């Protein structure tokens, strides 16, 4: 009787129904990534077919109306802004987390933590707007035109700082309690505890936080669009305007047709390649699911 699966009718039919629905939902959820990739590739194909991949890096410039599709300036722009923002935000973010957990008095730590959480929730368009109305005029006074690589780096650094800080903080929080008790037992000073035990033990978590922040930086659109000037050329100084891959899409998608539209999907594809690389890096750094 136990062997015949169908005998106990009601529970197992309900269960099969439930499990079926859940599977449908989860397949749908995982299908989205597939659909995104499919549409990126599907819409990129016409232009790739037409002119090939190499043109996207070897053409003389980005002038889609004249069939010139050089994406290198945008790629360089994206990478430069990401690098600059990471150089600023990674140390500051990690210092923030250390401050909050090991240095700040309780009251200040609570306040500081909520400030960081608040920062993480501010919409990117608000960051962009702030950069546009306060930061850009300041930079303009120093070295026109103001909308520049530097403006992008500064605003983006503030945007991704909470990502670094919150993940670093979570890493510290997840360290085994014994580390701290052991250190207290040996009456190690805070500085020794930090440099000899805590930082080495959280290396992979910190690395993950920086990689995820890099992913966020590479994907940011609105703030960059508003403050970087959007000129499609490789910048020659911190004060020259740049255009990123993301801004390129946002700027031209509204009117692009034919090969031009297709080339914008190629930009999207390029972004996805970078994101894939970063996510697999993060996986390797975190040895498992980064979001676990």
């Amino acid at each position, binding site marked *: 009787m136990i062997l015949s699966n169908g005998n106990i009718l009601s529970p197992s039919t309900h269960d099969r129904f439930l499990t079926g629905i859940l599977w449908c939902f989860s397949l749908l959820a995982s299908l989205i990534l597939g659909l*995104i990739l499919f549409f990126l590739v599907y819409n990129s194909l016409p232009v790739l077919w037409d002119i090939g991949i190499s043109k996207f890096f070897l053409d003389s410039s980005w002038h889609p109306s004249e069939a010139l599709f050089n994406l290198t300036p945008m790629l360089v722009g994206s990478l430069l802004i990401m690098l600059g923002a990471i150089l600023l935000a990674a140390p500051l973010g990690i210092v923030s987390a250390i401050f909050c957990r090991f240095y700040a008095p309780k009251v200040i730590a609570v306040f500081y933590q909520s400030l960081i*959480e608040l920062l993480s929730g501010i919409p990117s368009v608000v960051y962009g*707007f702030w950069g546009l109305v306060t930061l850009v005029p300041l930079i303009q006074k120093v070295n026109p035109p103001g909308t520049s690589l530097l403006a992008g780096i500064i605003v983006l650094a503030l945007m991704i700082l909470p990502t670094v800080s919150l993940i670093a903080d979570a890493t510290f929080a997840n360290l085994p309690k014994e580390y701290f008790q052991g250190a207290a037992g040996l009456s190690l000073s805070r500085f020794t505890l930090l440099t000899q035990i805590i930082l080495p033990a959280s290396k992979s978590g910190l690395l993950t936080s920086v990689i995820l922040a890099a992913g966020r930086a590479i994907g940011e*659109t609105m703030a960059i669009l508003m403050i970087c000037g959007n000129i499609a050329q490789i910048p020659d100084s911190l004060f020259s305007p740049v255009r990123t891959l993301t801004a390129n899409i946002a700027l031209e998608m509204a009117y692009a047709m034919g090969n031009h539209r297709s080339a914008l999907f190629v930009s999207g594809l390029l972004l996805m390649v970078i994101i894939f690389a970063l996510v697999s890096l993060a996986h390797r750094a975190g040895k498992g699911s980064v979001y676990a």
Partner: protein
Amino acid sequence: MLKQDLSSPPKGFGGVFDFVLRQGSTGVIWLGAIFVTAWSMWLISDIVFNGWAGLSYDFLTHTPTNAGREGGIAPILVSTGLVLAICMAVSFPIGLGTAILLSEITATDSWWGGMIRRSLDVLAGVPSIVFGLFGNAFFCNILGLGFSILSGGLTLACMVLPILIRSTEEGFRAVPIAQKLGASALGLSRLSTLFYILLPIAVPGLIAGFVLGVGRAVAETAALIFTSGYVDRYPESWLDSGRVLSIHIYDLSMNIAGGEAHAYTSALVLLILVLLINQTASHIGLRYLRRGVT
């Protein structure tokens, strides 16, 4: 005094160097924190002080005129609400279902479960502008929904799904394993285990996930430029184009000369909205949900 003695550095040159390093590092860390605080205070106070002047009941209840330079933002708030409603109505059931499947039904070592998890990990990293491209190609063009509230909502639904699933899963993780074993040992079906044992305990996690999803969706701009559109009047149907708050700010500051004052006020409104939403999420008591969810 004794404590002081033990932690004071040994004498000699190395000791002096060590001392400087210790004190120096404390200084650097405090400086860094003060710097970050000052920087963010600058941003927040700028928005609050400049936006405050224009904030009034009328601003929230009137339609924009003169391309948004005058009037209010009522239709924009309505569009924002509608896009959010679609987004959550679609993504919440799917997210909840996936979370239940991943945390309660598939074995942790199952191949399919692993694949779904991995695809969600990548999905969480996809830039919002790429969601915009996808939404434009799929919902607007292929499905023929055009620039509409519906397209925008569906695009956002795809975008918030990974956050939703992750925090909902976190909620299910709060259910003690003893309860699950107990239910299984009684031969309870999955359906009743879910309804009577799992869901009641997991509800705070679900609500927090929902609220976080709303917070992420309301802040989004790039995914909506090419999906929900720019039109700033009241939308007449789900298939009508509608302008959300974040796009309104973008448009006022970039394309409308003299739109700055209202852009400030709109930014303040958006800031307050996001703040309220995120505060709700953490008040539900699951601050730990934000780990990796930022």
